């Protein structure tokens, strides 16, 4: 597809320490526990970058702070930061995030995915495409693209 790497030498950051999710000891164990920022982050942090053997967390494409969750209104917004401004992999990364959250979150959830403002040359076009569910549906019927996404989501990494 692409000859040569888009970003040959990405900066790799340290992974965030994995926190044990805290529970209130005397709470009703059957009570519905709302989905929070940390839980959503845990779903996406280990997604592999399409061209490097690093996770989106290690490349700081995704941080916990870039995830907004409103469980009451069943809403999540993920803002990711491509490693370079002209990253042609931005839509693939966005697609991976969308697929992972589609598979992980309850179906009542609405998910918006966008590029961090000012971090991509064609930010508006990437955002529009990632949030057009018809185009996403068509993309996910493309076997090559699905292979690429599945590889990034493979549990062997992280």
């Amino acid at each position, binding site marked *: 597809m692409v000859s040569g790497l888009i970003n040959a030498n990405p900066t790799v950051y340290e992974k965030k320490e994995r926190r044990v999710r805290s529970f209130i000891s005397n709470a009703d164990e059957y009570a519905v526990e709302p989905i929070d920022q940390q839980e959503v982050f845990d779903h996406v942090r280990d997604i592999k970058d399409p061209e490097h053997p690093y996770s989106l967390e290690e490349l700081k494409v995704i941080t916990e702070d870039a995830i907004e969750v409103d469980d009451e209104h069943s809403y999540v917004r993920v803002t990711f930061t491509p490693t370079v401004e002209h990253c042609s992999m931005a839509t693939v990364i966005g697609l991976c995030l969308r697929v992972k959250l589609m598979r992980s979150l309850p179906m*009542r959830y*609405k998910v918006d995915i966008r590029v961090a403002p000012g971090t991509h040359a064609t930010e508006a076009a990437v955002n*529009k495409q990632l*949030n*057009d569910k*018809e*185009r996403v*549906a068509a993309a996910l019927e493309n076997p090559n693209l699905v292979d690429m996404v599945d590889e990034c989501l493979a549990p062997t990494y992280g």
Partner: protein
Amino acid sequence: MEFLEEANYQLKEIQTLEGHTDRVWSLAWNPSTGRDGVPPLLASCSGDKTVRIWERNLSSGSWDCKAVLDETHTRTVRSCAWSPSGKLLATASFDATTAIWENIGGDYECVSTLEGHENEVKSVAWNASGSLLATCSRDKSVWIWEAMPGNEFECVSVLQGHAQDVKMVQWHPTMDVLFSCSYDNTIKVWWAEDVDSDNWQCVQTIGESNNGHSSTVWALSFNAEGDKMVSCSDDLTLKIWEADITRMQSGDGYAPWRHMCTLSGYHDRTIFSVHWSREGIIASGAADDAVRLFVESKDALIDGPSYKMLLKKEKAHDMDVNSVQWSPGERPLLASTSDDGTIKIWELASTL
């Protein structure tokens, strides 16, 4: 319309139709059913690559799946449309083809396949007489096909002009004027001064610079008279347009559509579908799982006609509402389709 202002109305669910195994994108009521003792019939299409035909049993009142049209499309079926006579069903698919189906002795058979688009076909529509069919695609083009004897379809025009993915095509309810709406945020109007010449041209582009939408235009629909049009968009608005169609009908040339009003502040997420009933009620289906109804309001005649929300049905579905369509027939029913894999049939009932 006066009575609508005085009473309180609700959308009452009659039945949920289950059977599709993926999101249901769209549906079409058969125009020759639902009156004169003919039970109402509709077709629905889905990401599961099938089309289902549903009919209301007149004695039990229950809707049953009469047929599953499968093994023809190899990808999502995005859109379906009955010919005006109700004899043929056209289905548009992401597999880049459009199929034509005929009910032969109770079985639906694929009698023709229309090929030519480079990739996903997004929408299909028949003109009022059933002589022309339009399709549109992610390849940015709109095709006009002529129905020939023996279920043959000949492409008479390939219309280029949209800069992006074309989401929907729709013919004017009485005249051979074609409308297309697109991911490029515009609505284009296609017209042939002399239909027999097949000299179709874009006669108007409605974009943001002339009060049009600022994001993807997903759908449009006409009122019964055909002099008003409503469009819906990813920009979270509905827009109402009007045109002097008597000028066109009297042969004085093309009459452009003018912006009448914008309904903003009602929707929180993308509006995928809009449909205008013969009684003048506009239904919208959106990505916030709700169905809303709008009617013309007589309150603000000084600034010209305006529209107000008649009701909002929250959680009409468990997921995005992809399509809303009013039925033909004496007492219109509303049908909606959703990402939750179901079709719901609704009745507009008075709460008083």
